[in-house]
């Protein structure tokens, strides 16, 4: 199964993100963003645990709905990336308050990351947008369009 694919957009970067679970969809969305920020980050060895670049504090977020949770989650990672000059992959994630995977109840998440320092970003992602964002399960696969403002 594809993790994500690039779609057309007249000015910005539009992706389709997939996942067997909602957690996997979040992980794949973060990986898509990391690849856009730096196509070569995987060639860099992640620093050791005591390095300043490794994000050791787990991220905790609560949002009004699942779509907002994805935007808030990626926005936090994006800001940390730009401040620390790192890209991040998710090493652990737990999404809670999702009775029956409802997309309308206020959900929250906790996540941990591995940080990869980069000398240079390939793309300047300005923001993660709500444009066309709609997390839904189609034929057993969780998916959503995701538009980055670039």
């Amino acid at each position, binding site marked *: 199964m594809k993790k994500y694919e690039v779609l*057309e*957009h007249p*000015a910005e970067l539009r992706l389709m993100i997939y996942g067997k679970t909602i957690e996997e969809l979040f992980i794949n969305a973060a990986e898509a963003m990391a690849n856009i920020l730096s196509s070569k980050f995987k060639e860099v060895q992640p620093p050791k645990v005591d390095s300043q670049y490794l994000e050791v504090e787990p991220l905790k977020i609560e949002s009004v709905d699942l779509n*907002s949770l994805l935007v808030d989650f990626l926005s936090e990672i994006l*800001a940390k990336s730009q*401040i620390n*000059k790192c890209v991040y992959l998710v090493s652990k994630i737990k999404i809670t308050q999702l009775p029956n995977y409802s997309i309308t109840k206020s959900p929250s998440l906790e996540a941990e990351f591995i940080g990869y320092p980069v000398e240079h970003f390939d793309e*300047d992602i300005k*923001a993660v947008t709500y444009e066309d964002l709609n997390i839904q399960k189609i034929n057993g696969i969780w998916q959503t369009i995701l538009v980055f403002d670039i």
Partner: protein
Amino acid sequence: MVIWKSVFRRCFGIAIIFDIIKTMLTKKDLIKITDYLWEIPKSFRADMRVPARIYVSEKMLADVFRDKSLEQLINTATLPGIVKYAIAMPDAHEGYGFCIGGVAATKFPDGVISPGGVGYDQNCGVRLLISHYTEKEIKSHLEKLATEIQKEVPSGLGRGRQIKLSIAEIDKILESGIPCLVNRGYGEKEDIENCEHQGRMEMADPSCVSEMAKNRGRDQVGTLGSGNHFLEIQKVTEIFDEEIAKAFGLFKDQVVVMIHTGSRGLGHQNCTDYLRIVIPAYPKYGIKLPDKELACVPFNSPEGQRFFKAMSAACNFAWANRHMIMHYVRQAWKSVLGEKANLKLLYDVAHNIAKIEEYEVDGEKMKLIVHRKGATRAFPAGHPEIPEKYRGVGQPVIIPGSMGTASYVLVGTEKSKEVWYTVCHGAGRTMSRHAATRALSGQEVVRNLESRGIIVKCYSMKGIAEEAPMAYKNISEVVEVVHNAGLSRRVARLIPLAVIKGE
């Protein structure tokens, strides 16, 4: 909180239809008002509060049906407190919430303010510097000038500038904009006057900007960014109005420098932060919108006030960014051409901003919150908010073209009062970045530009391909619409001699 909700409902008589039937829009739904103005009547969709208007020629009309810009314009017409029309300029293209090239004025102080109506790049804008040289006089120095400017002005996608400002220094910039930089010896007093709003929104409050946003901006003052942001050495190829060109200090074959960028990561984070505050506040104020990214709250609500103060601060940061880039360009200019060589600031205009301005609406004077998202303020002659030296002719309006194509200098007119003294901001995309990179390689685009004698300095070939001129509307056609519609008048046409791209 409860009072706000009831006041808001009473003020606007909100009777929002929750299940909006999205009707397919076709050309027959547009009423032709003039050869350059079309209207979608309020009756087109039940939730529209005002008609939607687009300035475009019949020839260009097909472009706006290619993406979601008209649907987004109609959505903008649903904003609580919107006055007269939702407006799109001829460079309109799909954005999020508002279309890019969108204009909307809401009632002050009880209408809404919309972070979505400003956009992520708060106070993205453009400034034009004029030299006293002709192309012939400095042609042999152009390559060196472009190299030096590229060296002096980083994109900021790598390690940023060498100097990382403290949070206290960022706060000073957020609060005071350009004047504090001039006071520290960066630039001249005249640079303050020759900038929209004198480079400082007085409502700015750094305490309304998050630490995260400030941290994103610490090494970004004086950086260009990426995407369609650029720096060009240009020459004046055509003068359309000799008298006004003279007032602006422009002459044929003159070498000028254009800077196009915004508030960088600080502004982007600021918008993201406020969407996170504003969107959950909709129920509190009884706001229902067809698109989440329209994102608005009443101007006088606590959230609206904080957003306006934070956006004003980010606008000050953007002006400071363009000002410091100008400072570094001036340094490069002097290092190549000698200490006596100078670049004067003609003008600096914002094109992503919300401002309080006074207008006469149906015979009544009132203040409005004017949102310009990818649109340029264009005040006419005599307006008190433009520099005294331009007051006799009107505000200089700078319209950057896409990379490698022409740019224009226009002048504001009284007629543009019908669009809250606003015109277009550029060419407007017609092709996705992805499609552009598939159609042409960066090397091909560079070869094409170099074959036309244009010097190109860019670290990223992908960035060059994405910004290929064919991915944009024809800037001359866009400018022709605003000129023929009377929203502004052409003064001069500029073409690039050297392009310095961020990434």
